[in-house]
């Protein structure tokens, strides 16, 4: 569950900025003759609703209904006492109390768009059946169209406000890495220090995975309990600040000789991510100081904080996730990769802004 800072600063994301995002969606809805678009939000998939409204459910679930015009309507499973808090942290029109989310949504759709032929649902195929069943009963499954692709087409590139928030998130993550004690011997020391630093810096959420001993395994794990750190280890920090997610991965410990050229190559590889090359991934892989075992480019294009847009490499897991997708220039994305170097595996990721065709991508500034 989300338990870090949740707040909305109008200086960071203005009401006009949020209205412009909703207008971007509504224009596409009108072009595609959609009577409404529904976006479900919960802990694991808050991103579409938070991008449109700045709302993040710390727990529980909600459904946002966007019509071709007017302010979005929020159907919230939260108790009525939480409605003032919802108003404080996001921009929506009406808030409807909805202990039965699907039932309330069904009633609202019947009332506001009677006989609707096309109701888009972002990530429709993943909509929980407890929510979907009453809606299907009311409007029929034929009327519920998957709006994931339509939403993705307007979701990126990122606007200036989102880029600023992502840069702030990346700096929080970088600071969390800097806080790790040099003499850390256990995973609990690393993870506790990073968690504290990130949350004190205002992180909304911090999800940490760690490969405790790269000499034994490069698989990033969710540690429950404790584990001894090897000479070299890697941590992946997925972090949200004001509903904007970034991912930063670093290998740590006694630096192997090949890490310096690997870092240098990563920065060069990031620069090659332009809109024409997203599907193919980082260029010049043959010049890497080792084998590119796995790479992935992720971005926020639907309800999930980060989705794999393209992936590859020699590792089985990377092949299984190959997506081959596209992103326009100016999209916020993350390049993650695993190199098999002469002295062992090396994990890293960097958030970036996708370049225009033929132009270099920009890694986000981590030091600001």
């Amino acid at each position: 569950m989300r338990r870090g800072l949740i707040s909305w600063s109008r200086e960071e994301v203005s009401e006009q900025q949020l209205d412009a995002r909703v207008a971007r969606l509504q224009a596409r809805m009108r072009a595609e003759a959609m009577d409404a678009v529904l976006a479900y939000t919960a802990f694991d998939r808050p991103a579409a609703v938070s991008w449109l409204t700045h709302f993040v459910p710390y727990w529980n679930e909600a459904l946002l209904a966007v019509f071709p015009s007017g302010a979005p309507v929020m159907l919230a499973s939260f108790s009525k006492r939480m409605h003032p808090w919802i108003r404080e942290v996001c921009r929506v029109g009406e808030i409807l109390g909805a202990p039965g989310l699907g039932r309330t949504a069904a009633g609202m759709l019947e009332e506001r768009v009677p006989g609707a032929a096309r109701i888009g649902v972002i990530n429709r195929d993943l909509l929980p059946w407890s929510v979907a069943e009453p809606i299907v009963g009311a409007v029929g499954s034929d009327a519920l169209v998957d709006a994931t692709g339509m939403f993705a087409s307007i979701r990126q590139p990122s606007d200036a406000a989102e880029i600023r928030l992502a840069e702030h998130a990346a700096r929080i993550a970088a600071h969390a890495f800097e806080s790790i004690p040099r003499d850390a011997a256990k995973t609990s020391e690393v993870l506790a220090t990073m968690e504290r630093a990130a949350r004190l810096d205002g992180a909304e959420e911090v999800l940490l995975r760690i490969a405790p001993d790269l000499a034994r395994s490069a698989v990033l794990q969710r540690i429950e309990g404790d584990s001894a750190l090897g000479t070299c280890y890697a941590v992946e920090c997925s972090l949200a600040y004001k509903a904007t997610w970034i991912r930063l991965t670093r290998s740590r410990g006694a630096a192997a000789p090949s890490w310096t050229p690997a870092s240098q190559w990563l920065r060069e590889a990031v620069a090659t991510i332009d809109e024409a090359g997203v599907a193919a991934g980082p260029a010049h892989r043959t010049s890497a100081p080792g084998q590119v075992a796995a790479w992935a480019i992720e971005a926020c294009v639907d309800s999930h904080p980060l989705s794999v847009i393209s992936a590859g490499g020699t590792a089985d897991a990377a092949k299984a996730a190959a997506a081959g997708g596209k992103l326009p220039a100016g999209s916020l994305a993350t390049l993650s990769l695993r190199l098999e170097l002469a002295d062992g595996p090396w994990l890293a990721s960097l958030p970036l802004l996708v370049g225009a065709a033929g132009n270099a991508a920009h890694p986000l500034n981590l030091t600001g």
Partner: protein
Amino acid sequence: MTQSSAVSGAIRNERQQRLAAAMQAEGIDVLVVAGNAWRSDYLRFAADITPIEGNALAFVERDGTARVLIDSAVEAARLAAEYPHLSVSASARLFDDAEALILRLGKRNAALAPNAAMPYRLALGPLGPTLNSGTALLDRVMLKKSPAEIDAVRRAAALADDGYAIFRAASRVGRREYELVADVEAYFRSRGCPENFQILGSGGVEVRGMHPPGERRLAQGDLVTTELTPCVEGYYAQICRTLVVGEPSERQRRAYAVFREALEAGVAAVRPGATAGDVARAENEVFRRHGLGDYVTSEYTRVRGHGVGLYVDGAHILEDVTLTLEPGMTLIVHPNTYHPDVGYIVLGDTVVVTDSGCDVLCRTSRELFHEPV
């Protein structure tokens, strides 16, 4: 303890036996369990796993064989490493692969669960009409905890106690709400606990509930409320407490005494055969006796407690809930609500129903704590 994702053999075996017996009784050959980072409780029970991201489906056969499909390659690699007894595959076409697997398993009776996480596509897909619902079956077997599960809840309650001591120490004038949470989260991490649910509130008579932490700074005289819910081996326990920054006023002490009386009445009502409604009534009668009956309604409070275990919010403790309590059930009793004189107050303990009553698992004193300015 040196491990990545701790699930003891005892818990795994007990869960498997109960699930197998229930599947046999209902003639279900394979149970398809959906989950994600938000609803991982059913997945944990049926297949041990807790996704951090992505959407997972577990296919559990009656003999305990479990296969997992997940649409995140990174998570697939993690789960395969952490749970070597499972067959885990990354799937870029989750539903197509799931349907193919169901057909390949060739079982006569397959059931989907839970409704709260079952994806639209699977429920309405080509196999949908042939699949049963397994939600009620899982709800039933998950409600009563085995001895090993109760032990995990007990350890989570002890961690909650320790976490509250950290929260008290963090509650100083001038600190922001989210800074208190940072201290607690770091502490839980230092104890190897990766998961916690926590909300809080701070201020005076204007505060009507708890929320995720904001930027407000604590001030002298504030009531500071929190509920901490750490997770150990996949099982949550919760503690609710209230403290005052500085010396409590007489009005705060008087108001708080009602909550302490209500918690004691609620806990005393927890016994086999009593209903969840009986527990809520015992708590609420105390408020009514003190002329505070208006403040036990949904206008001011959500529930008077709830189940805890694999999920932070189980069966609700409300006067109209007829669920009969049985030994092995775990719940928190918390008469949290608004008091018109001082603001929102919380107080609650996790308990386990025993043969003759209940064991209170939280050890933290129920006093109104006050922290020096």
